[in-house]
């Protein structure tokens, strides 16, 4: 079986007895290897909580999350860091590059903390840079790059370790439409070429339309799920919009 990620009845509660908030309410789904899954939902729907639980930054209240068969809700302490460093790659909305490091150093740090040797690091970073078309910014600092370049560097950092799962949190949130398209095409390409499994949280239908499957979340519950199948991206986009409309059209600024 090719199941990378499996969520079983995941619940996450906030607050105390009086004002209990169910951020996640019995969420179950699974992601197969090589899938590009989008998760859509409005603000407060629980999608960021979901991402935090999968990335072990937050802890579930109940239920289980399996990663390549291992129950990650049972991992504790330093093993959590080990798990994140070896199995996950992160792409954040605001890039989160380290501003004192060049693009090259930012990407290589993901490998160096795994103890990969210097020669190997150079080789792999070079290859990844070529794929993402960021070779000419490798020696630049984040403040010298455009938003799109920064996000592609961040994507390179996330993917360089060949993680089991890449978690992208609103990766296009801080980009203009051209840079967004460029980044999404890159992610699509990486998904195809490297068989990278990507889980992307977004509230932007356009971004979501690059995924092969989109899961909709509302009030902490899975609302529906659609697959791209053999549709073109445009057709898939229209389907997404339909669901958004069904959701009440208030996926704030869905377009």
């Amino acid at each position, binding site marked *: 079986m090719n199941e990378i990620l499996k969520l079983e009845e995941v619940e996450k509660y906030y607050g105390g007895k009086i004002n209990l908030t169910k951020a996640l309410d019995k969420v179950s789904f699974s992601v197969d290897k090589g899938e590009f899954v989008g998760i859509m939902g409005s603000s407060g729907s629980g999608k960021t909580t979901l991402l935090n639980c999968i*990335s072990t*930054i937050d802890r579930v209240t109940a239920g289980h999350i399996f990663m390549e068969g291992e129950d990650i809700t049972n991992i504790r302490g*330093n093993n959590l*860091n*080990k*798990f*994140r*460093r*070896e199995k*996950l790659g*992160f792409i*954040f909305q605001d890039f*989160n590059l*380290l*501003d*004192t*490091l060049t693009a090259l*150093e930012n990407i*290589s*740090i*993901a*490998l*160096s*903390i795994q*103890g*990969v*040797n*210097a*020669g190997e*690091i*150079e080789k792999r970073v070079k290859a990844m840079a070529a794929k993402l078309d960021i070779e000419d910014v490798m020696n630049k*600092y*984040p*403040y010298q790059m455009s938003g799109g370049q920064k996000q592609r560097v961040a994507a390179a*950092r996330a993917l360089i370790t060949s993680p089991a799962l890449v978690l992208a949190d609103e990766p296009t949130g801080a980009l203009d439409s051209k840079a967004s398209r460029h980044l999404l095409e890159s992610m699509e390409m990486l998904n195809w070429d490297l068989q990278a499994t990507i889980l992307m949280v977004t509230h932007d239908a356009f971004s979501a339309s690059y995924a092969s499957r989109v899961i909709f979340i509302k009030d902490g519950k899975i609302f529906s799920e659609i697959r791209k199948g053999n549709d073109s991206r445009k057709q898939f986009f229209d389907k997404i919009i339909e669901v958004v409309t069904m959701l009440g059209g208030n996926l704030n600024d869905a377009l």
Partner: protein
Amino acid sequence: MMLFKLAFRNIKKSIKDYLVYFATLILGIAIFYVFNAIDSQSAMLTLKDTKLEIIGLLTDVLSVVSVFVAFVLGFLIVYASSFLMKHRKKEFAIYMLLGMSKRSISAVIVIETIFVGIISLVVGLMLGVIASQGMSIVVANLFEADMTRFQFTISSSAIVKTLLYFLVMYGIVIVCDVFVVGKERLINLINSGKRSEKNYAKNPVLCVIVFIAACVLLGTAYYSVTAGAEDLHSIRDLGIQVVKGIIGTFMAFWSVAGMMIILAGKNKRFYFKGLNAFSVKELGNRVNSNVFSGGIICLLLFFTICVLSCSMSVRNSLNNVLRKNAQADVQMYSFADDFDETSLSIDEILENNNVDMMKFSDYSKLHVFGLAGVSAQELLKATEYRDSYYSDFGIIKQSDYNELARIYGRDEVGMADDEYILLANYSFAVDKYDLALKNGTTLDICGKTYKPAYNKCKRLSVLMSAAEDNDGILVVPDTCDLEGYVKTYPESARVIDIFTANYVDMSREEHDAWDEYLANLSIKYISDDSGDTYIAVNTKTDIYDASVGLAAIFVFTGSYLGMVFLISAAAILALKELSNASDNYDKYAVLRKIGVDEKMINRSLLGQSALFFGLPLGLAVIHSIFGIQTGIFILSVFSRGGLTNAILFSAGIILLIYLIYFSVTYACSKEIIKENRR
């Protein structure tokens, strides 16, 4: 009332950020009190008059220094508090958004400062009072005071003075802080949380050039003040080297981070290991953004090390000198200003004043002759120092000297009939003399030629002194007809009578009374107006007291200034490090998200902090290796004894205080970058 509550909560909440500030205030207050309370130490109360005079002088010196110290501390406190204010802008923005008037916000600041002020003053003064009891022991040790009558003392005048100075400082702090908040506009306060991504990376080629230039500047300055010190003729020459050192220091700080990054980047195996690249770049960025303060701190530390070591060394060497140069109880000598004056003979003086010779267990009377042409210049005529040293030599006969040596408890000297021995211990002169003696330079004395008995001068003096200031006395065989020569050529010779004695066993009171009686003889002859001749009386007690007083002034002033500079430097570093940690919170959060272990993060932080603290200290230590030698060279009248101990002792103190600041800072910044704090 609400404002009070707010102010109180603010302090309680941000106690971690304030810890370094608090510690510095308390230390500053304690040090200020201790050094201003010295005159009222119980140990001082048991001292006799001559010592009290010295302590009066010491108190005067320290109170002048206190004014300077107050300026330094005042600057530090204003700096530290404005630094903390900068990090609270967001908080003030929220107050303003909630509709609090600037007047109320100012009131919060005033209440906070008063609150901090009261606590720090109370704790600081308590600490100071306790520490000053320890100081009593140091003082008693220095002045050999009677510690049996030790009692707990509190100096009210020092407390008042401390309160006064620090209240003024807190007043200035309030004015500055209120001014800063008052002129700030809301939009700026709100946006203050967003940090512009500043990058201080510098052109690597330029860094290498500047670094090499800094090394050259420092290297030549080091050379000039040590090995090349002979060529330094004036304060101005020395000043040029000091300026070179200062410029070199700043240049080094400007370029060191760039150099470090280049070197680290060259070693790929090191650079791409764990968080090394991150640590190196972060540290580089921090050093680059603190070039000025880094340089200043380095110079402060350098100054601290030099002042502490030199003052301790002066004290140690003074003690050694005393043991070697004040070996008899009392010494009197008469001398004339010029060759054509005849000095009074000591015999006459003793007789005329009916001095009871039975009170001396042992005494010697001897003549020191001065002959025109028997001088340092003559001895050095064949050396390169020919024109660098002018001084007439005193000449005494071997038997006279041996008698004196007996009283001093020294070894007697002997030589052949055509030989002389040179006694000198003035460090400027001895090396030069040794060169001439090694060459076997002969001297013509009373028409006869003498050659040196030894190839070095004996490091001894004839007159008792608190310093090693004998620049040349010749011991010649008894066969040398000095008396005859003086009779024949009275116009080119002069004679000094020296009377040296030890008292018989007597009580301390009688001893002091005799000292005073004999000392008064010299005053009597000065007021007697007996031409251009003088009587000088030195007692062992006086020499010890004067020199201990001198040592005390050096040690106290040195350690006072040293401590204040040290805590200033350490506090500035600590504050920079802490603000840096809170600025970098997000970076560490990212590192955690991508799976970096806590251990790795802490190690990186430790490395960065250690180097950030270590760089200025390291350069300061290198500076000091050369600076201390120069300091000792300048103070060379006091000889070079005990320097190693002094350096070790001051290094210990400096490291201790520095380490305390470092550990507190590291612990606090670790706490600041910890997860879930915000």
